[in-house]
C-alpha cells in the first residue's frame, strides 16, 4: 500500500510542477489507455496460468456479477434519496 500511495503521490507532484507543459500532459494522457491495455494483457496471463482461477471461472463470474449488482443498486438508491431531499425543488 505504501508503494502504491508513494508512486501516486510522486505522480501528483510531478503533475503539479509540470501542469503548464501542455504537450507533456497531453502525451501522458494519451499513453494511459495503452498502459491499461498492457496491464490487462499481463493480468490475463497471470490469471490464465493460475489453476485455481481457471478451474472456477463461471463461479467467479457469478460472484463478480452479484457484487456489481449490489454496488450499483446501493449507490443508485442513495442517489435517489439525495436527489429527492437535497437537489430537487429547482435548486439544480
Amino acid at each position, binding site marked *: 500500500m505504501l508503494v502504491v500511495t508513494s508512486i501516486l503521490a510522486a505522480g501528483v507532484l510531478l503533475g503539479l510542477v509540470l501542469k503548464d507543459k501542455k504537450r507533456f*500532459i497531453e502525451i501522458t494522457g494519451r499513453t494511459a489507455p495503452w498502459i491499461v491495455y498492457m496491464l490487462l494483457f*499481463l493480468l490475463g496471463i497471470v490469471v490464465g496460468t493460475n489453476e485455481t482461477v481457471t478451474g*472456477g471461472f463461471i463461479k467467479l463470474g457469478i*460472484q463478480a456479477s452479484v457484487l456489481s449488482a449490489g454496488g450499483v443498486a*446501493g449507490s443508485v438508491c*442513495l442517489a*435517489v434519496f439525495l*436527489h429527492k431531499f437535497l437537489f430537487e425543488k429547482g435548486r439544480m
Partner: protein
Amino acid sequence: MKYSYGKGSLIVVCVFVLGFFLGKTGIVGDRIAGLHPELWVLYVLLFTVGIGIGANTGAFGVVRRMHARILLVPLAVIAGTLLGSGIATLFLPGITLPQGLAVGAGFGYYSLSSVIISKIEDETLGLIALVSNLIREIVTLFLSGPIARLFGPLAPIAAGGATAMDTSLPVITRASGSGYAVVAVFSGMVLTLLVPFIVPLLLNL
C-alpha cells in the same frame, strides 16, 4: 477504464482474454507470470494517473462554484456502493465482508482496483474485482438512459462511480443533462482519487 471512451472496455476485454488464453495454454509460461510484470506496469499507470490528477487541480474549482452540496454526491456513492456490496457479500459464501467491500470500492475503476487487490490479497479476488468493476462500467455505458428516467439524474452518476469523470461522462451527460456534467466529473474524480486508498484499507479490516 480511465482516459478513453466506450470502445476502450471492449479492447480491454479482448486483450485480457488474449492474455488469459496465452497463460492457460502455457505458451507464455509460468516463468514470465512469476516475475509479476503487471506490478511494474501498474506502477507506471499509477504514476501517469498521478500526473493527470496533479495537472488538473483546476477542476476542484467546481466545488466552489457548486456549493458544498456537491460533496454529498461522491459520499452517497461510496456509502451506497459499500452498503450494496456488503449486502451482496452475504449471498456469496466464498467471499468475506472485507473482500466484498474492497471489490465494491473499485467504483468501476477496474484496472487499478484489480491489480491492487491481486497484489494485496490474491489473483482470484483480483479477477473478481476486474470483472465486477468492468460490469459496472458497461452497465453505466449501456443503461444510463433508462437509469436516469427511472431513478433521476444523479443515478447514472452513482452507477458510473469513478468512471463518471471520463469513460462514462458522455453517456451520463446525455442521460442526465449537461448541467450534471460538472457533478459527474467531480464525483468521479473524488472516487478515482480514493480508490488506491480505500481498497487496501478495506482489505486490511
